[in-house]
C-alpha cells in the first residue's frame, strides 16, 4: 500500500540519464553556437574609433563635441600634413588627462573667468566657479547647490540646484554649432595655420556652413593636442573663448561658499543643506567612517557565519581595543568542530583530534576587518558604492544598506543606523574568480559572553603541534621516501615531488598522507583537507598533467623547493601553472628520507632587487631558450596611479619612457627615477613582494641578442594590464584585470639580428597582487 508521500518520493527519485550521443551532440552544438557568436561579435567589434569614443565615459565635453562634429559631418582634410587621426584621437587622449581647466572669456559683453573641476569618475565638470572680474560677481556650483554673489548689491544667494549645467559651456555650444552646421549642410575643415590670437601655429578645426562662412572653430595646441580657443559665430560677430588652461593649481577654497562681510544672505536651500556643506560623494564616506568609529567602541561580538564550505559557524570574538581586530575567538561549527583562539594559540577539537597549535588558525580579523579596512582605506575611486536607508524585512526595522562593488569583490553590509555598526556582512567573490566566497554574519556587539568562552585546557591527550619537523615525524618513520647518499638530491626531490603531484592527479589520498603527513595527518581524516589536497579548493583548479620540473633550490635549511610546470583544470579551462613542492630532507636514526612539508599551488620563486642604477648589461640575454621564463629584468617603478578606472586607463595609455632607447634616468613629474635589477630564479616575476599591492605601473626592460632574424611567439603572463614593445614598436597590449599565468597572452614577434630591446609595461589596476612573466615559446 503506497501513501501519497511514497508517490512523491518516487517521482522525485525518477531519473533518466542522458546517452553519450546526446552529451556529444549538446557539447558540439553548444560549443559551435557560442563560438559562432564569438566570431560574429569579433566582427562587430572591429576597432571602430567612433563607436568606442562615443561610448566612452572618459570623454570630456570638448573632446566629445569634437567627436560629435567630426562623426556627424565627416572630415575634410584641406591640409594634408595634418594626420586625419589627429583631431579625434589625440585630442581625446589628451583630454583624458584633464583634471581641471580654466577658461577665460576676454571678448564679448561680459569678460569672465571660469574654472571647472572634472569629476574623474563621471568625466563631467561637477564643480564650476565663474568670476566676472569687472563686476566682482561670483557664481559657484557644486553638486546639488549653487552660490551666487552679487557684489554690487552685496548679496549672497544660495540655491538648492546646480545653476551652471556642467556641460553647458562646451558641449551645448558645440552641439548647437553642429546643429547649425547640419542645418546648413556644412562641413568640417582641419588645417595647420598660424593664429594671431594664440600667437603660434595651431591646428584649427572649423565648422564651415554651406555658404562658406565659419560657424565655429576650435584652435588646438599641436604640442598638447588640447583646444586652447573656442570660437563661435554669434549673430555675425565671431567671438573667441579662451585661452583655456588645463590642470592648473587650484587653491583648496576655490569652490567654497564664503559669505563676505555685511552681505545679505538669501538661503533657499533645504534645512539639511543649510546645516552643512555636503558633497554627495562624501556622504557615504562619512557613514563608513562613522562605522569605523563606532566599531572602536565595540569590545566583543557574537555572530553566525556561513563559511566558504557552507558550514554554519557560531562565532564569539573579543575585540582587541588597540587593533580593532579579533583578539580572542571561539568558533563552534555546526558539525561539531570547535576552535578557540587566545593568547597566540589555537585549541581545537575537530574530527576526533584534540590539539593545540601556536598562532591563530583563523585570521584574527575574521569578523571586523573587512569593514574596518573598507572604512579606513576609504572607498577607492574605482569602487562603486551605494548607501541607502531602507526597511529591512530581515531585521524588521530601518537599516543602512551599503553596497561596495570593487573590481574583484562585492561587499554588502547592513548597518544599524543607531549604533552605526554592521549587523550583517556578505562578501561573494564573483567576476573572474572561479571561487565563490560568501559569508554572512548576523552580528551583535558587546554581549554577555558565555562563561569560559575562551578558556581551554591542555590535558595529556591534547596533541601539541608546531614542534620542529623531526619531532613531528618521529612517530612514524615510514613517512616519505627513503634515499641514500649515492643519490643526487635534485633527483630525490624530483622523485618525491613527482610522486606527490601524481597522487594529486590520481586522487590517491593514502599516498598523499604518506608523502605530506603533517598537513593531512594532524587532522586525522578531515575530509575538507583531503578534498582540498586533491581538488585544491582554495587555489582553484585541479592538476591534470605534470609537464616538467625546474631545478630544486634551497628554500629553508634542509628544505628544498621543487618548481614544477603543471596543467591545471580551472572549471573546464586548462592553464599551465608553475607550482612548488617543498621537500624536507629528513634524517631519522641514521635513515634518510624525503618528506613533503608544503605545497604552493602557484609558485612565485625567490627574488632580489638591487638598488637604483642597474645597467642593461645585467639583463642582456644571449638568445632566448624556448620555454624558459626570463629571470632578469631591469625595472622602473612602481609609478603609483590613483583615482578611478578612467585614471588607470589614462595611465595605461600614457607612455612614461621611450621604449626604443634605454635611458638610465627617467623623469616622471619632474622626479628622477632609475632602473633596478629584479631577478627571480624561476622567472615568475611577482611584484607584490618587492613593491606591495600598490596600484600602479612598472616598466621592465631586457635586451636580447639574436644571431639572426628570428620569428617567434612570446608567451606573456600579466597581472593586470600589459603592453609589450620590441625595439620601440608596440607589439602587444591588453587592458585586463586578471591573475598572472604563464602565457596568458601569446604574441607573435620578429627579433632582428643583433641587439633587441624588449620592454614590458605592467599595470596593477585591479588591486591585490601583481606580476608578470615572459618567455619565448617553442612555436
Amino acid at each position, binding site marked *: 500500500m503506497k501513501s501519497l508521500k511514497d508517490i512523491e518520493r518516487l517521482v522525485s*527519485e525518477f531519473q*533518466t540519464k*542522458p546517452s553519450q550521443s*546526446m552529451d556529444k551532440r*549538446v557539447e558540439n552544438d553548444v560549443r559551435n553556437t557560442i563560438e559562432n557568436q564569438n566570431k560574429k561579435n569579433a566582427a562587430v567589434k572591429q576597432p571602430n574609433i567612433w563607436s568606442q569614443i562615443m561610448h566612452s565615459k572618459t570623454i570630456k565635453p570638448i573632446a566629445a563635441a569634437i567627436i560629435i562634429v567630426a562623426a556627424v559631418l565627416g572630415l575634410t582634410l584641406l591640409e594634408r600634413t595634418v594626420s586625419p587621426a589627429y583631431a579625434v584621437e589625440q585630442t581625446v587622449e589628451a583630454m583624458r588627462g584633464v583634471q581641471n581647466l580654466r577658461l577665460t572669456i576676454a571678448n564679448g559683453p561680459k569678460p569672465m573667468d571660469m574654472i571647472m573641476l572634472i569629476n574623474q569618475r563621471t568625466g563631467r565638470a561637477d564643480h564650476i566657479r565663474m568670476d566676472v572680474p569687472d563686476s566682482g560677481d561670483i557664481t559657484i556650483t557644486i553638486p546639488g547647490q549653487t552660490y551666487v554673489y552679487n557684489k554690487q548689491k552685496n548679496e549672497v544667494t544660495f540655491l538648492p540646484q546646480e545653476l551652471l549645467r556642467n556641460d553647458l559651456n562646451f558641449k551645448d555650444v558645440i552641439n548647437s554649432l553642429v546643429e547649425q552646421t547640419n542645418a546648413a549642410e556644412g562641413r568640417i575643415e582641419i588645417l595647420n595655420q598660424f593664429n594671431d590670437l594664440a600667437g603660434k601655429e595651431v591646428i584649427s578645426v572649423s565648422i564651415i556652413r554651406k555658404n562658406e562662412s565659419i560657424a565655429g572653430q576650435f584652435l588646438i595646441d599641436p604640442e598638447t593636442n588640447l583646444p586652447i580657443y573656442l570660437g563661435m559665430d554669434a549673430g555675425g560677430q565671431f567671438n573667441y573663448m579662451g585661452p583655456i588652461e588645463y590642470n592648473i593649481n587650484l587653491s583648496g577654497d576655490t569652490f567654497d561658499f564664503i559669505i563676505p562681510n555685511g552681505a545679505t544672505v538669501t538661503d533657499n536651500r533645504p534645512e539639511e543643506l543649510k546645516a552643512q556643506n555636503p558633497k554627495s560623494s562624501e556622504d557615504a564616506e562619512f557613514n563608513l567612517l562613522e562605522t569605523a568609529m563606532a566599531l572602536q567602541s565595540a569590545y566583543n561580538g557574537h555572530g553566525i557565519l556561513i563559511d566558504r564550505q557552507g558550514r*554554519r559557524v557560531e562565532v564569539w570574538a573579543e575585540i582587541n581595543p588597540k587593533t580593532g581586530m579579533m583578539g580572542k575567538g571561539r568558533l563552534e561549527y555546526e558539525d561539531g568542530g570547535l576552535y578557540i583562539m587566545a593568547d597566540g594559540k589555537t585549541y581545537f577539537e575537530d574530527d576526533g583530534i584534540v590539539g593545540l597549535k601556536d598562532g591563530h588558525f583563523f585570521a584574527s580579523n575574521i569578523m571586523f576587518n573587512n569593514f574596518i579596512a573598507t572604512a579606513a582605506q576609504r572607498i577607492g575611486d574605482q569602487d562603486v558604492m551605494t548607501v541607502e536607508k531602507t526597511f529591512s524585512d530581515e531585521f524588521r526595522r530601518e537599516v543602512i544598506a551599503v553596497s561596495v562593488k570593487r573590481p574583484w569583490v562585492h561587499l554588502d553590509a547592513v548597518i544599524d543606523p543607531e549604533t552605526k555598526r554592521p549587523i550583517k556582512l556578505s562578501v561573494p567573490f564573483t567576476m573572474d574568480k572561479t571561487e565563490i566566497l560568501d559569508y554572512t554574519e548576523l552580528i551583535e556587539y558587546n554581549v554577555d559572553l558565555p562563561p569560559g568562552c575562551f578558556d581551554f585546557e591542555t590535558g595529556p591527550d591534547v596533541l601539541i603541534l608546531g614542534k620542529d619537523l623531526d619531532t613531528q615525524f618521529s612517530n612514524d618513520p615510514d613517512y616519505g621516501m627513503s634515499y641514500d647518499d649515492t643519490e643526487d638530491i635534485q633527483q630525490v626531490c624530483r622523485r618525491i615531488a613527482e610522486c606527490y603531484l601524481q597522487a594529486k592527479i590520481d586522487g590517491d589520498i593514502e599516498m598523499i598522507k604518506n608523502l605530506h603527513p603533517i598537513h593531512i595527518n594532524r587532522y586525522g581524516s578531515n575530509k575538507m583537507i583531503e578534498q582540498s589536497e586533491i581538488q585544491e579548493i582554495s587555489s582553484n583548479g585541479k592538476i591534470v598533467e605534470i609537464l616538467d620540473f625546474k631545478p630544486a633550490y634551497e628554500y629553508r635549511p634542509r628544505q628544498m623547493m621543487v618548481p614544477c610546470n603543471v596543467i591545471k583544470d580551472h572549471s573546464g579551462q586548462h592553464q599551465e601553472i608553475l607550482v612548488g613542492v617543498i621537500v624536507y630532507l629528513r634524517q631519522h636514526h641514521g635513515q634518510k628520507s624525503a618528506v613533503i612539508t608544503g605545497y604552493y599551488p602557484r609558485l612565485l620563486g625567490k627574488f632580489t632587487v638591487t638598488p637604483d642604477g642597474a645597467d642593461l648589461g645585467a639583463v642582456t640575454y644571449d638568445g632566448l631558450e624556448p620555454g624558459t621564463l626570463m629571470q632578469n629584468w631591469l625595472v622602473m617603478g612602481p609609478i603609483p596611479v590613483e583615482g578611478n578606472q578612467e585614471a588607470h586607463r589614462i595611465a595605461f595609455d600614457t607612455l612614461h619612457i621611450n621604449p626604443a632607447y634605454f635611458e638610465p634616468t627617467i623623469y616622471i613629474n619632474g622626479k628622477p627615477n632609475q632602473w633596478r635589477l629584479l631577478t627571480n630564479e624561476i622567472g615568475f616575476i611577482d611584484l607584490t613582494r618587492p613593491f606591495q599591492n600598490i596600484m600602479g605601473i612598472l616598466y621592465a626592460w631586457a635586451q636580447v641578442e639574436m644571431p639572426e632574424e628570428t620569428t617567434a611567439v612570446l608567451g606573456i603572463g600579466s597581472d593586470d594590464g600589459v603592453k609589450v614593445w620590441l625595439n620601440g614598436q608596440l607589439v602587444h597590449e591588453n587592458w585586463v584585470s586578471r591573475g598572472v599565468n604563464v602565457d596568458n597572452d601569446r604574441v607573435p614577434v620578429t627579433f632582428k639580428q643583433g641587439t633587441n630591446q624588449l620592454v614590458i609595461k605592467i599595470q596593477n589596476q585591479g588591486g591585490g597582487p601583481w606580476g608578470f612573466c615572459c618567455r619565448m615559446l617553442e612555436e
Partner: protein
Amino acid sequence: MAATVAENYFDRSSMLEDKRLIWKMKRGCPEAGLQIYEKYKTDLLSLAAVLSHDKSIAEDIVHSVFVSFADKIADFELRTSLKSYLAICVSNRARNANKLKFRSNVTLDSTIEMPSQQPGPDDQATNREDLQRLSEFMKLLPYEQKEVIALHLKSGMKFKEIAKLQNVSINTVQSRYRYGLDKLKSLFNDEVIQ
C-alpha cells in the same frame, strides 16, 4: 533552523555559480555553457522524459533547450533560478512535442531507462519496479497534472511559478497536483480509477 540557513546558503551559492557561468557564457566561454549542461542535464532530461514518455524525444527537447539557451545568451538575464528557467523551457517544448506526436499518431513507447538511485540494497529491486510502474502510470495522467507534478517534484518549482506558466490560479495548480498524485496512488494500490 540551521538546516534552513544551510539550504538557503546552498541555493544562493548555486545561483551565484549560475550567474558566474552565465556571465562567462556571455563573454564567449563555451565551457561555461557545458558546465551548466552538466549541472542540470539529468534533472532536465528526467523532467522531459516524464512529460514526453520517450527518451529520444526527451533528449531532443533538452538538446534544443540548451542550444537555444546558448544562442540567446547575449540577451539572457537571470531573473529566477536558472534551474526553474530551464525547466520551464523543457516543459514548453515537451508540451509542443506532445501535440505534434498526437497529430502524427506516433505511439508512445517506453524506452525510458530506469533510474540509478541508490536506496539500501534490500529495497533496490522493489524500488526499480516501482519506478518502472510509475513511468507507466504517469502516461495515464492528463498532461496538465503530469506537468504540475513533474515541475514541482522534479524541478522544485513553486506552485505559484507553475500557475504562472500554466496561466491558471494557484488553487487550480494545487488541485491538479492533488488529483494527479491521488490517481497515481490509486494506480499503485490497484484501486479502481474513476
